[in-house]
């Protein structure tokens, strides 16, 4: 019986590369979305809500719910479940609407 999803699907991915989550290194596999890479590292939340500041992460997994919004390389409101991870990507927790630095 398969122990991991990768074993089940007979995956033979290329070498993993590194992205960071709030500065902490996280390994990612070629072909993985940002959300998938974060889940692999046990990270389930990468956003706080606008009103109550509660943590959120991927929910619907297919780009419909917009709960997985993250700040990727400084750009807020990217859907982490859709955006593929690229080597060196800097993911930061998106606070609220993510535009605090432009003062809106």
């Amino acid at each position, binding site marked *: 019986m398969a122990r991991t999803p990768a074993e*089940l*699907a007979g995956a033979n*991915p290329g070498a993993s590369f590194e992205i960071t989550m709030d500065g902490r290194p996280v390994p990612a*596999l070629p072909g993985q979305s940002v959300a*998938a890479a974060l889940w*692999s590292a046990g990270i389930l939340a990468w956003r706080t809500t606008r009103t109550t500041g509660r943590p959120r992460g*991927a929910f619907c997994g*297919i780009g*419909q719910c917009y709960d997985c919004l993250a700040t990727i390389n400084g750009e807020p409101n990217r859907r982490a479940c859709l955006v*593929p991870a690229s080597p060196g990507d800097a993911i930061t927790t998106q606070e609220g609407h993510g535009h605090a630095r432009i003062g809106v």
Partner: protein
Amino acid sequence: MPASVSDPYDLAVLGAGAAGLAGAVTAAELGLSVALLDAAPQTGGQFYRHPAPAFGAVRPEALHHDWAAFAELRRRLERSDIRRLSGHHVWAVTKEDGDLWAVHAVTGPDGTGEQAVRVRARTILLATGAYERQLPFPGWTVPGVVGAGGAQAMLKSGLVLPGKRIVVAGSGPLLLAVASSLAAAGAQVPAVIEASGYLGYARHPGALAANPRKLVEAAVHGAALLRHRVRLRTRSAVTEVHGTDRVAAVTVTRLDRDWRPVRGTGRRIACDALAVGHGLVPQIELATALGCATRRTADGTSALALNAHQETSVCGLWAAGETGGVGGAPLARTEGELAGLAAAARLHGRPADEGRVRALRRRRDRMRAFADAMAAGHAPAAGWTDWLTDDTEVCRCEEVTAGTLREAVSDLGARDARTVKLLTRAGMGWCQGRMCGTAAACLAAGDGAAEPPAERRPFAVPVPLSALASSDDSTGGRPDAVPPVDD
């Protein structure tokens, strides 16, 4: 393919899942020029979602039922000259002068690419599938609570799990498939919690007997659950999630016939994730924005009203698969083929092959009957709103609680979903009511069983102003300017 980039396609297919693929290859094989648009980088839609090529997965079929059917559609796609436009998020379909359709899309993995695109076509096949229906409960916004379909989607494409010990809950046949794939991928699944029973199916013996493959499929999932020691609890629901920053446990409560929680029956199950969903909702915004007629399905959702040839109430716009009522991949393939035949017949001005159409229609009607029986068996009953506490968030985007929604009804006099939305902002956020629409409509109606009315929204997905600015005739992007994406 059209002779020049400014020529319209004969058919634009929106969605490259089972229905869209079948429609596209059928039409192309009959000589139509076809553009196939999809938001994802790969074909397959949600059902046949699979790892990116970089994973080198040699057994993608391990996570799917009936992979061979998809492989065959993909072979036919590769042999065709269908123009594949992946990474295209369609935000509107409009009618242009001269009876042509214009399909407007933003591009890139999440639709934030620079390029806005307009594709012109003589006919349209809408095959945009479905998304999961959610009914809120206390704690459903805690990280680790994910959609049941969402958990499966992340597993199929990213080969990841949200936790090690995952409870699967909600209602509908998808739960069994999700539980068996999560367990096969190494997760511990202590229980599947189904709000309905399965006895409802027995009220439709004809539909069951006519669809033996469905019974085999159910038996396969059932056997997998037994093998993985997954317990199935019917007439129960997760009524609370414990944990603040992460799921630590859930409380499972028995439900009465109306889905009201039975007091004193709550039992705690330790877990680090919960995969939850209550069936699927047809994704039809692009069609309702054009005024297409809808019908109410057996489990209360809105689906497109279609004629025997899969055409919507708007001439030249066909639909197939979940958009006409949720029914699964084999039904979607059959309907896609029928729609492809119908579009080709219209453009060629001669009827389609009668024998082929007759056989397809028979298969479609048989599978539709089964889908309706299943939908009726899992329709949410009115009492579910009793498991909402006043501080349960209903609208995840705008953080609007059940208490606020109830107040809008009891104190402010709102009687319908639209008024509740205007008073509370529930449904006005990023997801445009896809996650909270059912719940907000139920609370507005006060009977727990209402469905949101089909809405006419000008934008099916968020569109940057820059894309609108570039979408006039003179600067409208051409599909050929978009780099091709490998499947």
